[in-house]
């Protein structure tokens, strides 16, 4: 019995490499950022429109997502650094059950407010298709930038975009 799997694998690999367009890691999304109100880790509710006038970085994360956990301290630093210039980071935890998220925040506290999207309403509003997902909203409440996923070093991209939005 001859196997053609040799050929299948060889040409399959070639086909895939051809088809592999770069998955959009960074995309420019436009339009007004959908408004939402969620319970925050401080206990009170937080509404996105209350932050109109500030540049907002919304980060969708989950406790079970490795790259999300890697990204959090980086975002925490970013929040502290540009806070006084009218910038804030908003963490949105997408888990149905917040227990694991709260446990993580206890062991790894962050400087920015964390909201709990237990019903996934906001995740759907923002069409979250990758974990983590980062959305940058300008002072007028418009979505200006969307970043999918996270690899260490990509925060340089955030810094650049945040600084340009702050200067507007």
């Amino acid at each position, binding site marked *: 019995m001859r196997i053609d799997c040799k050929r*299948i694998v060889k040409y399959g*690999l070639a086909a895939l490499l051809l088809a592999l367009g770069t998955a959009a890691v960074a995309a420019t999304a436009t339009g007004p950022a959908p408004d939402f109100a969620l319970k925050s880790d401080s206990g009170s509710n937080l509404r996105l429109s209350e932050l109109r006038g500030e540049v907002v970085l919304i980060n969708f994360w989950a406790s079970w997502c490795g790259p999300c956990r890697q990204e959090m301290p980086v975002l925490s630093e970013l929040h502290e650094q540009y806070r006084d210039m009218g910038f804030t980071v908003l963490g949105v935890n997408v888990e149905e059950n917040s227990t694991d998220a709260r446990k993580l925040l206890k062991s790894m506290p962050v400087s920015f407010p964390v909201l709990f999207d237990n019903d996934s309403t906001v995740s759907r509003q923002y069409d979250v298709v990758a974990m983590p997902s980062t959305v940058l909203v300008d002072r007028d409440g418009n979505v200006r930038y969307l970043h999918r996923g996270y690899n260490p070093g990509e925060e340089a991209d955030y810094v650049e975009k945040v600084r340009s939005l702050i200067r507007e």
Partner: protein
Amino acid sequence: MAATRYSLTTLVLLSGMAGSQAGVLPEDRADAMYHSYDGGGVEISGPSLLVLKKVGQDVALNANYYVDSISSASIDVVTTASPYSEERTELSGGVDYLHGNSTLSLSYTSSDESDYEANTASMGVSMDMFGNMTTLSMGYSRGWDTVGVNGVAAFSEDTDRQNYRLGVSQVITKDLVLEVNYEGITDEGLLNNPYRQVRYVDAGDPRGYNYTDEQYPRTRTSSALAMRARHYLPWRAAVSGEYRFFTDTWGIDAHTFQLGYTHTFTGGWILDASLRHYRQGAADFYSDLLPFQDSQNFFGRDKELSTFTSNSLGVKLSYDFLKQGWQGIERGTLSLAWDSIWFDYDDFRDLRVVLPASQVGSEPLYSFNANVVQLYLSLYF
């Protein structure tokens, strides 16, 4: 004695690790295992050590050290030779490179024992696609073996191996994953155990039979296709099922069925239970007793190529003893696994039972039970 044909342990090891999440490198870890096999007169035990460490953002290195200390008084050994002891050492090293949604893996393995040397080079690619719902994997391995015979310095034969792997993993629902894997393997060279012998009816011998060396084809091509699924259960448990079909150019067809259940208990305990049923048909040239010498072009009496079934029951218990972490260690688990395997042969006979020459070929069919124990420590960094 090469008690068993060298099998590509590391291949499984590395293909399992590299592709677990194509777009994310695996967690840093170190595992130290003690393994023990006892069955059919054979005792094999030893360590298996693994280290997996990220270097920088995109690269992970892995290394494995494995030893089999063999003490063999198997049925083949006691009927045709004498019990022996041996040691096989296997070393392997590999690298995973992450780029976007893909992981490229390379590895090299070297296995050494007094009469068998095996070297394998392997590469694999794993890609996440369609919103990370689908993972496609492909792999290729090349092996170069040298077969020797203890005490016969001049004996040296080569065997070359090639493996082609293709796999797709698909997320079906938020609780269900399905995987299909294909692997084609070709072997070329000396494919039989040089010590093993085949028997044929011989009226001139008091036993009623005599022995001669095995004669195997010098090539073998096989295909295996497996499908498995794993489903999450609401009480933090999981159930899985697997079926694999195997066929090769030696006329062997085999079916493997596996069922597994994983249960978690509060306090960091995980219990895994499994059932496995395996059945195979004999190779075309397999024969427990040839009617006369040279009655076929190829002949072999390796029970591994006979018609048989194996049924296994397995249990594993793991305990997370370092939930809060310690120094640089994030998590640590201690695991104990026990598998019991029953082999029942349909056309391989137990020659320890000596019958009068007239009843040659009516010896009872052979069967045995083996117990496999694994004790290991896993540290995650």
